[in-house]
């Protein structure tokens, strides 16, 4: 055996949440009410709790790490999120790339072995930065030459653009979802958060089933964005 370091498997999840001004009110209140429920859901399955790592990145004009990647059993309270400002997807993607890279090295130093990280991207709007800028940041995040490139699930409601979300999820099937037209955020957001919690727990449990995978959530008021087939 060549390797001489002890390793412990972890499955990192990053919630990348749009915290622009349009999320103020019901959507953000719902997020702040439901995010702590993830801790309780994970706590119900102690085997799964040992493998999940969860972090929250929020973005508007800039991006912040609201909850550093954590073992949820050690988190006393999930910080609340305040909505303000515009919707810079570029800031979100650049911050994610740097955060994942930094977290990976810190985590490896502590003896963790990573499953490919998952990013859960949630937005109610279109990017306010110019397309070239956010697409270039997205390319850096999803560059397959970068070993840590994450799998991305994306979810949109309100003014979110299905074509943009499909791009965010690299046009992979069943990775991008959009709320039904006219659906109220007051309905969509609680369902989405509940679905995401289940998705994170199910994905982490799959580590113990011989086929670790990112399990998409079931959100009744959202539908998968179809992905074109190439010739």
């Amino acid at each position, binding site marked *: 055996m060549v390797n001489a370091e002890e390793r412990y498997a972890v499955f990192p999840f990053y919630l990348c949440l749009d915290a622009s001004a349009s999320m103020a009110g019901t959507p953000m209140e719902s997020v702040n009410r439901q995010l702590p429920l993830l801790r309780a859901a994970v706590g119900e399955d*102690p085997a799964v709790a*040992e493998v999940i790592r969860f972090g929250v990145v929020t973005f508007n004009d800039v991006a912040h790490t609201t909850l550093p990647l954590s073992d949820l059993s050690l988190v006393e309270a999930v910080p609340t999120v305040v909505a303000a400002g515009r919707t810079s997807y570029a800031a979100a993607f650049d911050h994610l790339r740097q955060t994942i890279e930094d977290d990976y090295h810190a985590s490896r130093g502590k003896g963790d072995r990573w499953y490919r990280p998952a990013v859960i991207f949630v937005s109610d709007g279109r990017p306010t930065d110019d397309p070239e800028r956010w697409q270039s940041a997205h390319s850096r995040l999803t560059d397959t030459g970068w070993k840590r490139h994450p799998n991305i699930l994306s979810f949109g409601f309100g003014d979110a653009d299905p074509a943009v979300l499909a791009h965010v999820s690299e046009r992979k099937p069943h990775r991008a979802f959009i709320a039904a037209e006219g659906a109220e955020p007051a309905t969509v957001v609680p369902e989405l958060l509940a679905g995401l919690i289940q998705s994170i727990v199910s994905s982490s449990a799959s580590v113990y089933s011989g*086929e670790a995978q990112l399990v998409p959530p079931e959100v009744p008021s959202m539908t998968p964005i179809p992905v074109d087939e190439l010739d």
Partner: protein
Amino acid sequence: MTAPGAGLPPVLGRPSAAAGQPAALRPEGSAGRAAYRADEGQDEHWSLRAASVAGVHHRLAGADAEDAYAWRRAGESIVVAVGDGVGSRSGSAAAALVAVHAGCEAASALVGQDAPDPRVACEEAVGAANRAVRAGTGATTLVVAVAGPEGHCSLARVGDSTAMVLAAGEWRALFPSRAADSVSSNATAALPADAPSIEAAECILRPGEALVVMTDGIADPLRDGPTTVAPALAAGMVTPPAAVELLTLLDFSRHGCHDDRTIVGLWRRRPEDG
């Protein structure tokens, strides 16, 4: 390694809180679906030990294990197979069991013929298992090994179940594992498949050495625990342990290691073993 109490599973590395919790009572049970299974035996050439424990995740959820093992003697040779049902599909515990039996049956039939080529026997075993698994709804990994009386072993596998040689207290992998610096792959090859991705391996066992076939529930912690799991298992298997001892050892506690664990060891006997 934390010294175990009498008959208790050891703690190997960072302890697991989940591993200490009581198992849920499953809705139904039977000897064939036991959460703890073990076996042992020896003939002129080989000592065999097998052990399989349901993972902590399955035990706490009140679910059956999805690993399986089988062996079949074929003249002076022996065929060993291990399978790991892919848990995201229903019927995968059955698929693993069907695959290991079909694989052993097909390989032993060929090995018993006049001009046996163990490499061909292994590939045919995977083919037979693939056909057998198609009748059900589940999916499984499979490793098949054919061991001859002179210590020559041929193996074939589909998926991430694997095999190692235990020689002089050291583990030697017979199949490649993931790259050391990469993020773990999230995909496992499995049967059934239209064109199974078969990997082959060979080794020669000297007397006293063991071929150890295992599912990833034990292979992963063995690779990830080079100063805990690997030496503890090597020490416990330097000579064939009693089946119940192997079962207890296999049930070690380790943080985040809660998949089903199955291991089959085949020691080539030494003249002094009697």
